[in-house]
């Protein structure tokens, strides 16, 4: 078992946790957090799986991850701006199918 495999596995774990929360948590901010955790998981998988062969550190997946991090902050910023507009327009930071739910956090309403 190598460190690279360990980190790739952790990436997979983060993806699972992220999807779980994305589907089950109602508050839109939480869904944005979930997407970000998933993104980090995919990036870990990219670098970790790429490094499993050993040898010198491969810069290509690293550059891809930096690209990915910037793409992900762009998406996060747009998502957060949307969350805020939804909260202002409808009074609740949730999608219509989740509006009946207790948002399970103190800042829900």
């Amino acid at each position, binding site marked *: 078992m190598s460190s690279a*495999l360990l980190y*790739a*596995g952790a990436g*997979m774990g983060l*993806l*699972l946790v992220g*999807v*779980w929360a994305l*589907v*089950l948590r*109602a508050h839109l901010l939480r869904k944005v957090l979930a997407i970000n955790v998933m993104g980090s998981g995919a990036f870990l*998988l990219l670098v970790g*799986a*790429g490094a*499993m*062969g050993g*040898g*010198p*550190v*491969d*810069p*290509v*997946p*690293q*550059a*891809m991850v*930096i*690209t990915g*991090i*910037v*793409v992900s*902050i*762009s*998406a996060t*910023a*747009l998502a*957060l*701006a*949307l969350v*805020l*507009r939804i909260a*202002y327009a409808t009074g609740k930071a949730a999608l219509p*199918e*989740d*509006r*009946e*739910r*207790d948002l399970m956090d103190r800042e829900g309403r």
Partner: protein
Amino acid sequence: MSSASRPPGEPGLLLRAVLALLLLAAAAGVALALVAGQVAPGLSGAVAAALPDSGASNPVTAVLLNFRGYDTLLEMAVLTAAVVGVWSLGPAPRIRETEPSPVLLGMNSVLIPLAPLICAYLLWAGSSRPGGAFQAGAVLAAAGVLFIISGRRPAVHLPAAPMSWGIVAGLGVFLAVALAVMPGGRELLEYPRGLAGALILLVETAATVSIALILAGLFIGGRPEDEP
């Protein structure tokens, strides 16, 4: 409320079970694909071989701004499109002026002047050591964010026009360089021999300024008020 154990609208046991099964299956698939079969050697050798011609001695910078510079170009487009999208949602929500805490003000008086220095170092170091445009831009933006939330600023009347020119400068300069090298039978982004280092620095500097402005613009959360 139908039952005490499950509030209305709360996802049921069936959904959770199906989701868990799907996720476990996906995880098993990925795990098998990871451990089964060969692991390819990757591209570190190819990058090392081409590094002397790339105009940067940090391999990651070489990949980001030369070998796979086209990815970075489109990534700048994504970042710019995000701020265009955020601005399109409406004017920025106003931030209420409050008396900032003395701790924050004290911290800021050290951090804000320091940020451009760190930024310049990261930008300069990027070609040979870890660092580069994105990290440097983020540090500069962080200083801007501290400035915005510290309340020690002239009223939030951000002039839209210079800000939007600054926002597009990164992608604009990158595109201009990418296209300007083409005459003479070269491909998009194919830097002429010997000019790669200088052009990369030019692109990175413009990108740093834009990234800082874009990240700060994203933080404001909407378009400046004088923007039509």
